[in-house]
C-alpha cells in the first residue's frame, strides 16, 4: 500500500512559486492567473467525492464511495477496467485524465444542505477539486449544484430523484445521470395498468417535502391518465418514524392501491407498517389491495425485508441486468468488495467515467468545455442501454427499470427482480414540460 510520494509535487511547486509568490498585488479580486477554477497544473487532478458518511444514508454513501474508488482505479489504469471496456466512447485510455493521475478527496454531506455545501466548498477552496460529485438526496444535490455553478466547477449529481434537479433548479454546471420522479411515473403507469387494470382507486402517502410532492404529482398524473381515481393524498412529516396513524385510515377509505411516496427510512417504515396492517392480504371492491413504492433502492429494500415481496416500483439500475456493461461492472465491483453494487454505486461510477471521458474528449478541464462535451452526448455500454445527456436540461434519458420485490430470494442481495425495462422513448418529456418549468439553465461558469 505504498502511496506515491506527495512531496514530489511540493518540491516542484515550491521552486516555481517562490519566484511567483506575492506577485499578485490586486488585493480583493479573484485570482486571475487561471482561466477557470482549480485548473490542475501538476501531474495530478483532484476530484471531490461528497457523500453522506454519517446520518441515515451512511450506508448508501459508503457504497457510493466504493464505486468512486473503483472508478478512479479504472481511470488510472488499475483493475480490470470495468465498464471502461464496454463504454461506447473510447477516449479514456487508462492513463488518468489527460495524462494526469486522478486523486480524490472525500467529504461528509450528512444529508444536510449546509454540511454538504461546507464540505464541497472545502474541497474546492482547500483541496483544489475540479469536479464535485455525489450526494444521496435531492435537497443536497440541488444545494451543491447551485454552489458548483457559483464556484465554477462541474457537478455530477449522485442520487437525486426530484424533478427539480433538472427542472426548476437546473444549472449549467450540473449534470444528472439518475432518473427522476416523472420518469418513475411514466415507466410505472403502463405496468400498473397491465397488472392491476385501469379502474383503481389510489391513496397516496407522501413525505411532506419537495421531493415527495414532485413524486406524488408525477405518479398521480401518470395513474390518472390511466383512468385511476385518486382517493386521497396525505402528507406525512419527514421526521415521522411510525406511520400507523397514516396507514390506519387507509383501511376504510375505499382505496385499493396504496402509493408510498417515501424514500429511505421513511419508506422502510411506512412499507413495514402498511404490511403490518394486513394491506397486502386485503380485498377491496373485489380486488386485491396493492401497494406501490415508486422509487425503490435495493439497500432500502433490504431494510424492509420480507415486506417488499411482490411490491412494484421503479429503479435506475439493478445488478441482475444481463447487458455487457452491467455485467462488467458487477464483476469488477463484486470481485473487489464481495457483494454486488447498488444503484447508487452504479450511478456515481457512471458519472465519474462520463466526466473523465468528457474531459478527455474536450481536451481540457475547463468546465465550459466539459459541459459542451457532455451536452447532447450519446453513449452506450454503461448499463442502461443507449443514453442521451440532453443539452437543454442536462438530464440523462435512458431506459428505466420497473422492478418487483422477489418472492423467493436466493441470497441477501437477490431482493428485486426486473419486471420490465421501459424504453427511454417512453419516459422522455419535453424540456418545457410543466413539471419541469420555471428554471433556467443559465450559462456555464468557469469561475476564477
Amino acid at each position: 500500500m505504498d502511496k506515491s510520494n506527495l512531496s514530489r509535487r511540493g518540491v516542484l511547486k515550491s521552486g516555481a512559486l517562490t519566484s511567483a509568490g506575492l506577485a499578485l498585488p490586486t488585493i480583493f479580486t479573484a485570482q486571475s492567473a487561471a482561466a477557470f477554477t482549480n485548473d490542475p497544473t501538476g501531474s495530478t487532478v483532484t476530484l471531490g467525492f461528497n457523500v453522506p458518511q454519517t446520518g441515515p444514508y451512511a450506508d448508501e454513501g459508503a457504497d457510493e464511495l466504493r464505486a468512486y474508488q473503483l472508478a478512479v482505479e479504472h481511470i488510472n489504469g488499475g483493475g480490470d477496467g470495468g465498464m471502461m471496456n464496454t463504454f461506447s466512447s473510447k477516449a479514456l485510455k487508462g492513463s488518468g485524465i489527460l495524462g494526469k493521475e486522478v486523486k480524490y478527496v472525500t467529504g461528509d454531506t450528512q444529508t444536510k444542505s449546509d454540511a454538504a455545501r461546507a464540505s464541497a466548498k472545502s474541497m474546492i477552496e482547500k483541496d483544489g477539486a475540479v469536479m464535485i460529485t455525489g450526494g444521496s438526496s435531492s435537497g443536497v444535490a440541488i444545494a451543491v449544484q447551485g454552489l458548483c455553478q457559483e464556484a465554477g466547477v462541474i457537478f455530477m449529481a449522485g442520487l437525486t430523484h426530484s424533478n427539480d434537479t433538472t427542472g426548476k433548479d437546473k444549472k449549467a454546471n450540473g449534470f444528472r445521470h439518475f432518473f427522476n420522479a416523472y420518469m418513475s411515473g411514466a415507466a410505472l403507469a403502463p405496468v400498473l395498468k397491465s397488472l392491476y387494470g385501469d379502474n383503481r382507486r389510489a391513496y397516496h402517502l407522501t413525505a411532506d417535502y419537495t421531493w415527495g410532492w414532485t413524486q406524488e404529482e408525477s405518479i398521480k398524473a401518470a395513474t390518472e391518465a390511466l383512468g385511476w381515481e385518486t382517493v386521497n393524498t396525505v402528507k406525512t412529516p419527514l421526521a415521522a418514524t411510525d406511520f400507523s396513524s397514516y396507514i390506519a385510515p387507509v383501511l376504510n377509505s375505499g382505496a385499493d392501491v396504496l402509493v408510498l411516496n417515501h424514500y429511505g427510512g421513511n419508506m422502510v417504515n411506512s412499507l413495514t407498517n402498511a404490511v403490518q396492517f394486513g394491506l397486502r392480504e386485503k380485498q377491496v371492491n373485489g380486488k386485491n389491495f396493492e401497494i406501490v413504492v415508486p422509487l425503490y433502492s435495493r439497500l432500502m429494500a433490504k431494510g424492509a425485508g420480507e415486506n417488499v415481496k411482490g411490491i412494484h416500483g421503479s429503479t435506475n439500475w439493478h445488478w441482475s441486468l444481463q447487458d455487457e456493461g452491467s455485467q462488467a461492472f458487477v464483476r469488477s465491483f463484486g470481485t473487489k468488495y464481495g457483494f454486488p453494487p447498488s444503484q447508487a454505486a452504479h450511478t456515481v461510477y457512471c458519472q465519474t467515467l462520463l466526466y473523465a471521458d468528457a474531459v478527455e474528449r474536450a481536451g481540457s478541464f475547463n468546465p465550459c468545455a466539459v459541459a459542451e462535451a457532455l451536452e447532447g452526448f450519446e453513449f452506450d455500454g454503461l448499463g442502461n442501454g443507449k443514453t442521451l445527456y440532453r443539452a437543454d436540461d442536462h438530464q440523462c434519458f435512458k431506459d428505466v427499470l420497473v422492478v418487483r420485490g422477489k418472492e423467493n430470494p436466493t441470497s441477501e442481495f437477490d431482493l428485486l427482480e426486473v419486471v420490465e425495462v421501459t424504453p427511454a422513448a417512453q419516459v422522455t418529456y419535453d424540456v418545457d414540460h410543466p413539471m419541469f418549468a420555471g428554471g433556467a439553465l443559465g450559462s456555464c461558469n468557469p469561475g476564477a
Partner: protein
Amino acid sequence: MFGLDKRDTGVLIIVALLALFAPIILNPFPTDSAMAQFNAGYPDLMQKFVIFGIFAIGFNILFGLTGYLSFGHAAFLGIGSYSCVWMFKLLGYNVIPGIFLSILISGLFALLIGFVSLRRSGIYFSILTLAFAQMCFALAYSVLSNPRFNLTNGETGLQVYANDPQWFHRDGLPDLPHLFGLSMRATQKIQVGAWEFQFNAGYYLCALIMLVCFYLAIRIFRSPFGMMLRAVKSNQQRMNYTGLNSRPYTLAAFVISGMYAGLAGGLLSAVDPLAGAERMQWTASGEVVLMTILGGAGTLIGPVLGAGFIKYFENIFSKINDNVLHSWFAFLPDGMEDFMVFIIHPFIGKGWHLTLGILFMLVVIYLPGGLVEGGQRIQGWFRKRGTKTEAKAGKTEPAE
C-alpha cells in the same frame, strides 16, 4: 481603551490579532505536505469559525450570565438566514440590508418566544424554547414551502432565482452577495514558499462584525446590566425578594442573544446565499449549547473556542479517509501500516461523530470549565514551573 479595563483590552486585541492573521495561523502546514489535511485556513471554514463564534458569544450572554438554557436558539439562526436571503431576492445582493433585516426579524421572534418561554425556568424553559424551535423547523421544512405560499423553499433551501425582482441589482455588480461591489467570495491567494494563504473578503467582513460583537459582549459582561443577569443566575428568588423584577433583564438578555443568533444566520447567508431549514433543527440548537459549554460557559473567549473546536472537527476530521491514512503511515512497514490504519479507521471519516462524542465526554469529565479551564490549568502548570512570568500569563485569562 473603548471603555474597557486593561485586561479586557488585552483580550480584545489578542482576539483581533488572531482574527486578522487567521488565514496564516490556521495554515501552519505546507500545502503539499501530508499534514496539510489539518490546515483550516480556507475561506469557508474560517467564515464558519467566526460566524459560529458570534452565535456562541450571543448564546453565552443568555446562558453564561443568566443560566437559562435555551434549546431553541437555532430557530433564530434560521430566521436570520431566511430574512437575509429574502433581502437578496427582493433588493439585490448587497449584504447590508440583509444583515440588518436578519437582526431585526430574529430580534422580533426572540421577543415573542422569549416573552412566552421566560414565564418558566429550569428545564421547563428549555423545553419551551425547544418546542418553539422544532415548530419553526417543521413548518419551514414543509408547510411554509408549499407552492402557493413559498416562504422557505423547504428541503432545497431558500435561494435567489434569476426571475426574482432584485430591485436594486444593477449590471456590473457581482451576481453573488457583495458589499458595495466587493464580492464576498473574492479571495486573494498568496503563495509564500510551500505555503498558500487565502485572504477572503467574506471572512474579513464576518471577522470585523465578530470583533464588534465580542466588544459588545465584553461591555455587557462588565455593565450593571451584566451584574443583574449574574444575579439572576446565582439566586433569582433572592433578587425578587429585594423588590427587583428580573423578567425584563432576562428578556433583554434573551432578545440580545436572539439577535446575535440572527446576525450569525444573516452572515451565513451573506457568505453563502442559501438558507436551509436544517439550520433550525434541534441538533443545531444542541450544537451551540455544546460549543458554549465545551469552550467554557460564562467566560468571554470560551464560546468562540468551542465553536472553533466543533467546526474544525466537523470539517477536518470528516475528510480524512483511509487513503489519507495510508499516506501518513507510508513510512511504516506494510504490516504495521495496515495495522495503524485499522486502529485509527473507526475514528475518522465516517467515524468523526464518534471522536467528537468521546471528546465531549472527556472535556466534560476532566475539564468542567471547558477548554478555558484547560488553558488555565496549563497556564497554572507553567506558572508553577517557570517561576516568575506571571505578568504575561494573566493576559488570556478569561473573565470569570
